[in-house]
């Protein structure tokens, strides 16, 4: 079986119209971000980017509908399913940051490579950590969303501490790998049983 073909097929299936609420959430977040962007000064704007975007990415990833029987009937291993879900989570999670960066470039002409790297890498890692919230409930679910936000914040902090962009990126790749691996393990152990 072609694993790449199967992974892409699953990721694309998740983009079908019945799951458009994820996109709507992201677009709404992006519009809020752009509205705040216009009304804020540069320092406060940066703080907003640091705190809100990774958290938004993690929260958006947590809305993915993964606990469905069809996903677990697919003849793939947990890690392969996890990769497909990760493609979705990152795509959803990056929608708002990509719009914000576009606004930064268009309105301020000020998005440096460092900024672009930490915003995109931070939001991606936050989405991957937030993905684990999809299989949890209650406080643990909330903890994964907050944890995703904090992961993105940590990556942004590295950049603001003067670490060059490739150092930030390497840390983000490491963190993202660990998050994806953990999600894959959880997915492999998860049993989709009907509600009582």
């Amino acid at each position, binding site marked *: *079986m*072609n694993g790449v*073909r*199967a992974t*892409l*097929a*699953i990721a*694309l*299936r998740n983009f*079908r119209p*019945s799951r458009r609420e994820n996109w709507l959430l992201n677009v709404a977040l992006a519009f809020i971000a752009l509205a705040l962007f216009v009304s804020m000064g540069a320092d406060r704007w940066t703080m907003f980017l640091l705190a809100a975007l990774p958290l938004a990415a993690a929260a958006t990833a947590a809305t993915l509908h993964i606990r469905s*029987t*069809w996903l*677990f*009937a*697919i*003849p*793939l*291993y*947990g890690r*392969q399913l996890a990769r497909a879900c990760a493609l979705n989570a990152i795509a959803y999670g990056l929608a708002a940051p990509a719009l914000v960066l576009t606004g930064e470039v268009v309105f301020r002409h000020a998005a440096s490579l460092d900024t672009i790297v930490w915003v995109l890498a931070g939001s991606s890692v936050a989405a991957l950590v937030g993905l684990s919230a999809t299989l949890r409930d209650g406080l643990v679910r909330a903890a994964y969303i907050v944890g995703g936000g904090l992961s993105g914040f940590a990556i942004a902090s590295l950049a603001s501490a003067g670490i060059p962009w490739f150092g930030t990126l390497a840390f983000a790749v490491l963190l993202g790998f660990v998050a994806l691996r953990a999600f894959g393990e959880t997915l*492999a152990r998860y*049993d*989709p*049983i*009907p*509600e*009582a």
Partner: protein
Amino acid sequence: MISSTIVRVDGARFVRDGVDLIAPFSLRLEADEMATVEQPNARAAKIAARIAAGIVKPTSGRAFIADFDTRLQPAQAKRLVGFVPAEGFRVEGPPVETIARALAAIESELRFRAAVWGANYASMRRRAESELAAYTFLRDGQSQAHALALALALSTEPALIVLELPPAGVAEHVAAATPGCAIVSSSVSGQETIASQVATPLAEVTG
């Protein structure tokens, strides 16, 4: 030596938060055999069907599809299964009225399965079409959802068909339509039974 057994479940239990959610069950089926797993309630019947299909892992006991352990080799095991969920396959919009429209409604799902199973789309479509033609799927929404789910499940040429709480008559229809397959269906008995499920040859089921 390769076993001719298509599905084997040995003393499967499913425990959540210290509570047994199903009546423990065992079964063993070869090709052209069918068994019904009876459970005390609908939730237990769904879990039992999912264990037989390799979708849910038993807390204790083991499940094999062909010779693949569903816990250790889930991808290989699930590849041989056509799973028909209790809710069937629902499509948005008004009920489909012809086989052509039914095929159009499941086209993207068929393409998806062709990609994931690594199967030929045209062959899968032909099998789905012949299944839809053989099934009286236009009676009502529930029946239609089952017909579509069956067409999708059979399109991948499974060795094992698992029917989760099928409506009356569906198991017999599938038995007649799929020679060479093993069929597991789940149902609600209302009793807290602990019993092995007895295999019935398909020839007896279909008369």
